């Protein structure tokens, strides 16, 4: 399968905005693997993740009209929709119960960083440099939150710190990242 470029995807989204179903199918084909990858890291339960992925594409269909290629790349725009929807879902649910486990997909929950073997864009390289400026533990906290959708409570348990400490660390880490990226 030939991988569409960002410009191709932007054109396809413009057609989706005009309710072109063929273009929508092409967008799905080109991006569903990526968005599914994002969603299942946060929602390992397959049935829930499937529902969320459906919602994400229905939203893309509806909101293609508001996609602005000057503001974001098509895939970043879609990834944001997918992540927001997945996080909404994982926050809405009460803590995952034991019976959730058997249906889980084999996502490595202990792997916080797909960064290690990623091909990096200029933006990502810059962000990575800034992340390197954080203490190792604080960096891992940020990455687990981003990639696996862990809540403050879950992070507190995993790192054996009070929730208030995690919150403070998150705030400091994010402020530091902002400063670093702003330079």
């Amino acid at each position: 399968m030939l991988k569409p470029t960002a410009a191709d995807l932007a054109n396809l989204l413009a057609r989706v905005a005009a309710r072109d179903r063929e273009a929508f199918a092409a967008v799905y084909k080109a991006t569903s693997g990526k968005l599914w990858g994002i969603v299942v890291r946060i929602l390992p339960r397959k049935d829930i993740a499937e529902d969320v992925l459906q919602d994400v594409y229905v939203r893309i269909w509806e909101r293609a009209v508001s996609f602005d290629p000057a503001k974001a790349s098509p895939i970043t725009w879609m990834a944001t929709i997918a992540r927001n929807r997945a996080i909404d879902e994982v926050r809405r649910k009460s803590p995952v119960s034991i019976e959730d486990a058997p249906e889980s997909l084999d996502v490595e929950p202990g792997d916080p960083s797909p960064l290690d073997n990623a091909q990096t864009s200029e933006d990502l390289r810059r962000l990575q440099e800034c992340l390197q400026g954080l203490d190792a533990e604080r960096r891992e906290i940020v990455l687990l939150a981003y990639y696996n959708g862990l809540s403050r409570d879950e992070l507190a348990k995993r790192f054996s710190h009070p929730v208030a400490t995690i919150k403070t660390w998150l705030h400091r880490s994010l402020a530091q990242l902002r400063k670093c990226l702003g330079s």
Partner: protein
Amino acid sequence: MMNGEDTDLIAAEYVLGTLPADERAAAALRALKDKSLAEAIDAWSRRLGPLAEAIPPREAPATVWPEIKARIDALEEVLQTPEQTKAKIIGIERRLRQWRGAAIAASALAASLMLFVGYREVVHPPEKTLVAVLQKDAQSPAFLVSVDLETRVLTIRAVAAEPQRGKSYELWLVNDELRTPRSLGIVGDKPFTVVHPQLAGYSPQVIEQATLAVSLEPEGGSPTGAPTGPVLFAGKLIQATK
């Protein structure tokens, strides 16, 4: 009011995903009205967005695409209605689309909901009627609201919201000028509920600019006077008249 730094941290944690459910819902709601928060969220999405590049794709289950197609078909069905009706629906839809904040984006389905449950009063409304579709997302319109600004009579109809055992749906008026969400009362499980005394205390301007939100509360309503449960549905009031 929150200062810039707070707003930026809320935005940062919203994008990172670490806000607890209630704060997350409150932030999403506030971003609809608060431009500085909406812009801060956009900026943080751009800052952290590159991280998503690194996530390896996985093949999505084959069952998902047919389901999406079916949902799109259902959405678009409304546009197969006669031309005159269609033009009016699209007019409504366009106004709905102008609402800021994609989180509560409008949809053809929202318009079709109006067609089913209240089309006549939407298209030929009395003067000064505001309407809102309260929804979790475009697929799940749950309540239809109309407000008569003259009499301050608010009518809310549960359309798809299912009663939850031991819980109550509570309706909130949200407007920055009010600082905190104000309860308009419990939404009963009957299709019609009219809450008017609660609205009488607010000026038409406050009501016109308001977002309505429904949260899930303990039976009988929020014990604190502020939303304690998740905000499940929300929508912006819009003019039903030209």
